[in-house]
């Protein structure tokens, strides 16, 4: 269609039909004041302050909702327009309480700015403040709706961006306000406290609760969130060198846009925790003969580390030293860390904390796809033809990914959710498949996904939904999986899964002929039947031609922000930087040449092997960066006993963790917001950032500590800048060729993906979960949105702990009744597995099937790992093995 030409302030402007006057003006650097308009929200026209005048007709129009029309002659700043604008602002202020002086929005208040720019001081109107109760019961958001100007940004952000629907306008006229269902306080509503509304609110109606600071921060800086794998871009408000507030960054094309989640927005107060490490500590003898950690200088601490580890290496060989890197540290730090292990201490015993939780799945996908599935932009979910979510609730693991899915579903993208539990995702407009006809649904909870995916594939194939062209050109089927489908009866398959045949047919009809975006849980391989579930999902993806194409394929939302990066940087016993196979002589040679050092040929020990070696006495020293094995690994008693046997432990961390307490040397490190570096997020984006705040006390960025350590150990290379490390990474790992050139850069596309044929997995065996009368229930150890990982950080957030510190165990109503538990009193229950037991309060999680227990990890005093089985972690979910995240338990009231 032809462009439309209008005149704005005397300037001829041509824009496509449908463009609003506001957009046309802004594109031509003509600014119009707004309060309710936001680039990421649909035009709304609530506040009317953006009104402009058409000189031809004399009409006044709200420019944010009026499309351009041919030959309009717009004045954006005429006397008449200004007069009307002034009146709008005067009326708003007349209704506004005079509490600016204590308002935490301070100088960022947009109403105040608008008033200032229009020269509105005294309104000369009778003040009629619209007092509403001030709500501060929840620890995150203060709601003072007397300051609300009804712009509707909070409501629209809630509906359009995070798609939760916690609030909408209620009532009419003077009493109209944003309200939750039944006008309940936020914490009793479906609000997830993502805080998106707080960042959007133009006035002080919504503000962040903080015990540390109120008002406008001194400055704002860019950083990337240090929690989950989404890697949200953030604008950090800093005052006095401390992080006092966090909002979404205003950068374009970020993963999160104007949203964040409760962790990103509010949990950062852990940065100010008293548990932060501020000086190096060395274990020394006291006068009374006991030992304790005592303050030391960096120089002494590093000398001790280098001296002791070199000593142990001399006596016991390099294989007696282990290095645990961190999926929470930057790419540059993990690179230096594994280089120190491999080059200075000559061992491949280097791994990272997510080895058994997320990294395992990334590696499996890499193996099966030849690296063709590393780049999975979350925005692809909104463009996907269909979405299948398998046994995970992204709203709790990686909330920003959950928003993408919700937006897609709101936009009528078909979604099938395969989950024995009715998660938030399962009840959000898609088709929910669960073992409704299986009385043992809880016990078979993890077998269910295998059968449901199989039934779906059979049903799709029977409706000629297989993408035969893709299968012919891009896949191999050595085990005859596709043939096996034709022998299956789809209805019988559905019955075996415990689903009505009609429901599977309906699900299949939603997917036939479509490329599918399959969302898999990051800990899939650590669950019972994890391998079979992965195979079934992979086969379904190949059957529908969904791998290696845009906006489809396997989506894994990693839990830690740099799970992918730590792996890419070579914090793995068998991988060198750039995911080069350490056992492959050609690959090794490239790295050896760059490092000018011969490298060990055999793979080193992984996380669990190191623990076993410590038990056996063959591992003597462990260097742990940014990880708390005593809290995050299964069976903490066993881990503690193993670590006790070590001669020397170094812990480099930001807070005083349980593991730091038993260390010989503790090195204080800077958190994500206090250093420069880059993280690689779950979509395969390398996100670079600089320091926003000061590290507390003597603490230093991990890469500074590692660089000093290398120098101390006599390594000739001086790593004085991040750029120096990046140069090396770019040279060794072509995957990271674009690293650091911009804030956000994609990994390089893998060359091997195109030529390689993807291989169908064999059909799954018939194993079912074993019945075990002494442990009749299935427990899953997982995260709720408030906490992440083992909770070393989130449990130290005052706000998170105040709201959600209890970590109650979730049980089904059926189980509560059959065990005779008076659930309304939040009774303490004991959960016992073959490994150990924990006691916590229990409450009903309404979506759980009978026989299923949800144990949240990450809470203050987190002890979830006491029921997890170390040996099950070793085995993974192999051949129906239990997997360490899924545990057989019994429950008693205590």
């Amino acid at each position, binding site marked *: 269609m032809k462009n439309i030409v209008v005149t704005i302030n005397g300037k001829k402007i041509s824009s496509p039909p449908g463009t609003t006057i506001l957009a046309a003006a802004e594109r031509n650097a003509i600014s119009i004041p707004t309060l309710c308009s936001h680039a990421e929200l649909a035009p709304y026209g609530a506040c009317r302050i953006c009104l402009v005048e058409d000189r031809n007709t004399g009409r006044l129009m709200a420019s944010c909702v009026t499309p351009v029309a041919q030959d309009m002659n717009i004045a954006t700043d005429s006397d008449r327009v200004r007069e009307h604008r002034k009146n709008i602002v005067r009326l708003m202020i007349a209704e506004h309480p005079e509490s600016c002086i204590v308002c935490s929005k301070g100088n960022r208040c947009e109403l105040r700015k608008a008033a200032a720019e229009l020269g509105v001081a005294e309104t000369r109107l009778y003040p009629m403040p619209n007092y509403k109760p001030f709500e501060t019961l929840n620890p995150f958001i203060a709601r003072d709706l007397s300051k609300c100007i009804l712009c509707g940004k909070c409501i629209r952000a809630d509906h359009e961006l995070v798609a939760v*629907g916690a609030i909408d306008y209620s*009532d*009419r006229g003077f009493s109209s306000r944003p309200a939750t*269902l039944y006008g309940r306080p936020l914490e009793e509503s479906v609000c997830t406290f993502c805080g998106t509304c707080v960042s959007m609110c133009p006035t002080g109606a919504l503000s962040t609760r903080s015990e540390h600071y109120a008002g406008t921060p001194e400055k704002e800086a860019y950083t990337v969130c240090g929690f989950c794998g989404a890697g949200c871009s953030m604008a950090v408000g800093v005052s006095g060198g401390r992080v006092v507030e966090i909002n979404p960054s205003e950068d374009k094309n970020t993963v999160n846009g104007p949203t964040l989640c409760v962790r990103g927005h509010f949990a950062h107060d852990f940065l100010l925790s008293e548990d932060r490490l501020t000086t190096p500590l060395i274990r020394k003898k006291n006068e009374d003969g006991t030992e304790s950690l005592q303050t030391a200088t960096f120089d002494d601490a590093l000398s001790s580390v280098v001296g002791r580890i070199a000593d142990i290496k001399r006596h016991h060989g390099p294989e007696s030293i282990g290095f645990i890197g961190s999926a929470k540290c930057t790419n540059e730090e993990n690179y230096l860390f594994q280089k120190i292990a491999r080059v200075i201490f000559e061992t491949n015993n280097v791994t990272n904390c997510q080895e058994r939780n997320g990294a395992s799945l990334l590696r499996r996908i890499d193996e099966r796809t030849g690296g063709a599935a590393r780049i999975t932009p979350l925005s692809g979910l909104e463009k996907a033809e269909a979405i299948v979510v398998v046994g995970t609730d992204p709203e709790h693991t990686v909330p920003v990914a959950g928003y993408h899915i919700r937006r897609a579903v709101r936009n009528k993208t078909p979604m099938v959710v395969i989950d024995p539990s009715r998660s938030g995702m399962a009840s959000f407009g898609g088709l929910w498949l669960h073992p409704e006809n299986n009385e043992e649904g809880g016990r078979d909870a993890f077998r269910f996904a295998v059968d449901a995916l199989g039934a779906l594939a059979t049903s799709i194939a029977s409706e000629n939904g297989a993408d035969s062209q893709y299968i012919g050109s891009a896949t191999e089927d050595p085990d005859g999986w596709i043939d096996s489908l034709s022998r299956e009866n789809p209805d019988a398959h559905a019955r075996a899964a415990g689903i009505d045949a009609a429901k599977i047919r309906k699900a299949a009809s939603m997917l036939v002929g479509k490329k599918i975006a399959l969302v898999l849980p990051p800990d899939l391989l650590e669950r019972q039947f994890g391998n079979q579930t992965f195979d079934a999902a992979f086969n379904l993806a190949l059957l529908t031609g969904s791998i290696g194409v845009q906006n489809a394929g396997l989506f894994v939302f990693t839990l830690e922000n740099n799970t992918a990066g730590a792996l890419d940087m070579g914090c793995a016993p068998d991988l060198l930087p750039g995911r080069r196979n350490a056992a492959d002589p050609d690959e090794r040679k490239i790295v050896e040449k760059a490092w000018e050092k011969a490298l060990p040929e055999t793979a080193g020990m992984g996380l669990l092997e190191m623990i076993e070696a410590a038990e056996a006495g063959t591992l003597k020293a462990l260097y742990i960066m940014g990880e708390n094995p005593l809290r995050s690994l299964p069976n903490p008693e066993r881990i503690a006993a193993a670590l006790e046997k070590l001669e020397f432990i170094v812990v480099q961390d930001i807070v005083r963790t349980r593991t730091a307490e038993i260390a010989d040397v503790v090195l204080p490190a800077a958190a994500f917001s206090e250093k420069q570096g880059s993280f690689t997020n779950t979509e395969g984006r390398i996100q670079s950032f600089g320091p926003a705040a000061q590290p507390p006390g003597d603490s230093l960025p991990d890469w500074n500590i590692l660089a000093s350590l290398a120098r101390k150990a006599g390594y000739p290379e001086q790593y004085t800048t991040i750029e120096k490390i990046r140069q090396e990474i770019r040279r060794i790992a072509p995957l990271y060729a674009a690293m650091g050139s911009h804030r956000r850069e994609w990994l390089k596309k893998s060359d091997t993906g195109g030529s390689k044929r993807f291989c169908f997995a064999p059909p799954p065996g018939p194993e079912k979960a074993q019945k075990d009368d002494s442990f009749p229930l299935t427990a899953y150890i997982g995260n709720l949105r408030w906490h992440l990982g083992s909770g070393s950080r989130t449990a130290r957030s005052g706000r998170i702990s105040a709201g959600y510190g209890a970590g109650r165990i979730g049980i089904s109503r059926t189980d509560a009744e059959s065990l005779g538990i008076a659930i309304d009193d939040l009774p303490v229950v004991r959960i016992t597995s073959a490994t150990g037991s924990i006691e916590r309060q229990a409450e009903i999680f309404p979506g759980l099937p009978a026989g299923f227990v949800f144990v949240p990890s990450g809470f203050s005093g987190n002890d979830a790992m006491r029921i997890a089985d170390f040996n099950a972690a070793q085995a993974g979910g192999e051949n129906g093995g239990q997997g360490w995240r899924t545990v057989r338990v019994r429950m008693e009231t205590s």
Partner: protein
Amino acid sequence: MDPTQFDREKLAAVIGKYQDKKWALIPLLQDVQEVFGFIPPESIEPIADALQMFPSEVQGVVTFYSGFSLKPKGRQVLKVCRGTACHVKGSRTILRMIKKDLGLEEGETSEDYQFTLETVACLGACFLAPTMMVNRDYYGKLNPTKVGAVLGEYRKEDKEA
């Protein structure tokens, strides 16, 4: 019948007619109000579910229109006109009389759920001023005797039913 007792099956039957039709929110709410006499707050979530809306959105619509009520109303809803014409013709006295007779203030419902007393800005029947409506019936040219007779008639009918 105690209107505070919520009959889920009755609601499901009403909702069933409009399943997945987001445009039908207002007709659906009108039907619910017709069946229950008001919009039971418990019905908001099932309605939202059926139309694939957020419950808060449904609440927003219910609270916006004064025609919808989240509180149970009496079997007879009295709407006394407080428009200009009726005012001139003495509607203030009529209202005072009714208040006294029923023992109710504006917006209140009697304990036995027989009467709800409301006022409206204008019923559009100014030629009959002063007027009121009881449910769907108009009563015009009111005077104290006539008001007493109308209320008495409704009391009698209600007892017989």
